[in-house]
């Protein structure tokens, strides 16, 4: 294995050190040895030509489902991390809706050790269940989970509905600096809904999820945060009113943050007319009005993070009647392409802003160590070919599952590779 790499003539963008220049980065034994326009190399240095390539602090996807333990037919930690690496991520946080749920130190340890064994270039940060077995009834052993290395608390896949429990999770979790990540969905309003309530659901006769299901819970949670403090992060927001709620909460300086997914800012419920079950996700695809406001929220900084909500399901599970199909799509390998195509090319975000949302902010929210592209620091990079035009082919995905509505889409921008923990992995 090569122990030194030269990333030659890369466009280095690092929001933390305020770097934005074409330069070369020499890495030795996993650490940054030198940054300069011209670096002479020794014979055994692997030179990676980064002409036209953006070199950014390693991307961190803070909302993913690796499915192991329990659902290895959808994804394993190994296939998930291989997919993450291929998509340009050097770190992922994984949600606890596994079987068993991540509500014990043993399961946290299991995930961490599987990750180290399989794809050591990608770091895994388990998110623990906020309540025992994600049942929304009793607090999970939060102190024990924090000690084992959990970085946040969430019952994602389901909301924590009980308001008193939300309060207690925020209170208890704050002693260990663990944010509570809420899947905002009032189940009584969502009912048996499978798509957004709107004109499309009306014409399709489909049971629908009103926007209220998201906003009423978010609004309530923000009030709880205001009362008890604690660190709160709203997962995968999808409707425009939610962005306004977050805007107001941030004006009050509450410790709140939020994320959106590439599919929610790229697609609308018009897609459901095809009855393609890869358009079925939770929260559901909304309307163009919502997409427009998500873009505003991304631009003005109300939305802190872009996360894929990578949610693999096997073909057998998705190739069924719409109402029986599971919610969710895979996301690692299309995230960068959708971000570049929908956000950079449209000038909605600058590269610095995008890197903030894909690398800096998720790490800040999860209290992970900062990544700086500076001499003496550990090397942890994502390389992006921003000009590359490519066609999504789900069969080429490294993920075990292929459930993506973006198959055959033409995108601009693709991960070229990652470097982390002394390893370089080139994207396919």
């Amino acid at each position: 294995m090569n122990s030194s790499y030269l990333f030659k003539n890369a466009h280095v963008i690092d929001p933390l050190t305020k770097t934005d220049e074409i330069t070369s980065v020499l890495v030795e034994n996993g650490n940054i040895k030198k940054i300069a326009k011209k670096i002479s190399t020794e014979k055994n240095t692997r030179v990676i030509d980064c002409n036209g390539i953006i070199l950014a602090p390693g991307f961190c996807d803070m909302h993913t489902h690796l499915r192991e333990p329990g659902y290895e037919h959808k994804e394993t930690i190994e296939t998930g991390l291989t997919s993450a690496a291929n998509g340009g991520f050097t770190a992922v946080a994984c949600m606890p809706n596994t079987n068993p749920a991540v509500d014990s130190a043993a399961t946290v340890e299991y995930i961490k050790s599987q990750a180290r064994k399989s794809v050591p270039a990608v770091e895994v940060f388990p998110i623990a269940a906020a309540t025992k077995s994600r049942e929304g009834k009793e607090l999970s052993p939060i102190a024990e989970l924090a000690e084992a290395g959990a970085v946040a608390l969430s019952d994602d896949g389901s909301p924590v509905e009980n308001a008193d429990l939300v309060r207690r999770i925020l209170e208890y979790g704050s002693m260990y600096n663990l944010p509570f990540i809420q899947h905002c969905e009032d189940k009584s309003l969502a009912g048996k809904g499978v798509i957004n309530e709107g004109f499309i659901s009306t014409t399709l006769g489909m049971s629908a999820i009103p926007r209220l299901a998201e906003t009423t819970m978010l609004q309530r949670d923000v009030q709880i945060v205001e009362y008890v403090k604690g660190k709160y992060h709203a997962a995968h927001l999808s409707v425009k009113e939610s962005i306004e709620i977050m805007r107001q909460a941030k004006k009050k300086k509450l410790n709140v943050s939020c994320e959106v997914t590439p599919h929610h800012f790229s697609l609308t419920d018009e897609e459901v007319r095809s009855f393609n079950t890869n358009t079925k996700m939770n929260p559901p695809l909304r309307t163009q009005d919502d997409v427009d406001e998500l873009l505003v929220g991304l631009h003005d900084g109300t939305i802190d993070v872009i996360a894929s909500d990578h949610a693999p399901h096997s073909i057998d599970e998705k190739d069924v009647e719409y109402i029986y199909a599971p919610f969710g799509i895979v996301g690692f390998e299309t995230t960068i392409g959708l971000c570049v195509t929908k956000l950079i090319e449209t000038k909605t975000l600058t590269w610095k802003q995008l890197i903030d949302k894909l690398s800096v902010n998720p790490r800040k929210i999860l209290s992970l160590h900062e990544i700086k592209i500076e001499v003496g620091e550990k090397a942890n990079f994502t390389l992006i070919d921003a000009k590359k035009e490519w066609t999504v082919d789900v069969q080429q995905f490294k993920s075990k599952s292929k459930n993506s509505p973006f198959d055959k889409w033409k995108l601009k921008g693709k991960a070229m590779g990652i470097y982390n923990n002394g390893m370089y992995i080139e994207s396919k």
Partner: protein
Amino acid sequence: MTETPTPKLHINHLLGMENVSREDITLMLDTGMSFREVLERPIKKVPTLNGKTIVNLFFESSTRTRIAFELAERRLSADVVNFAASGSSVSKGETFKDTVKNIEAMKIDMIVVRHESPGVPLFLTRISDATIINAGDGAHEHPTQALLDMMTLREKFGTLDGLRVGIVGDISHSRVALSNIYGLKTMGAKVSLCGPKTMMPKFIEQLGVEVFHNIDDVIPNVDALNVLRIQRERLHAVLFPSNEEYNKYFGVTKKRLEKARKPITILHPGPINRDVEISADVADSEHSFILHQVLNGVAVRMGILFLLGTKGKAN
């Protein structure tokens, strides 16, 4: 019917009434009418679909629709296979796709499908080579019901153009309502909907219909009322407080109908809940076309089966 070349439909499957042209609807209604004559013969059978195999694939029970289809199929001399499965196919371990693939391996020509999930008929066109007829997909569409309703109205009024039709009841959970709205609008009718707000899809007005929440506002302004069945057993108790209250405020009663300037034609997809959505005297009155609808239901389905079944392989 065999002397002149038969006009052909532009559609290869009957998945719904949305986007079906006026021309196609007219052809289906005309063909249905010509089969009515067959039904009135002493020997009610023609050899039109001799040698064709049709599967009635019913994942949701519906005695009426299934029998109407089966009668229509047999009177056209098709070979008929009935496949009934209650509830979700997934719960039995075999996927819907497997079921269809198995049935298709038996070399079939057409599938008539009823399923609780919207979109299943379209899904079928992707996994099967057979011609697909939607016999109801969830609360999405029920095109043959709309066609038989339109056939009945056209027979009574001569034309659908400018006809004022009211649809009363649980619009949210009705496949009949959506198909009727699409079809009637295409044919030039004016459609008004009436029902409690809890049973009215929030965005339905965008389909170009008027919405009312008081039955007495609708009655003076329509030529016909299509009264939908209230299925209290299937609904959450939150949609309306009781059958009694529904009947009191939305029930179609003789007393209410007397307020109209001229008699209103009454349709109902059946089976009726007497004295819930409709009073017994209205259901049995001379202006009720409910039994007529049943006869037209067989005739119009014969027409559709004939038009799609003799069209040649769908592409």
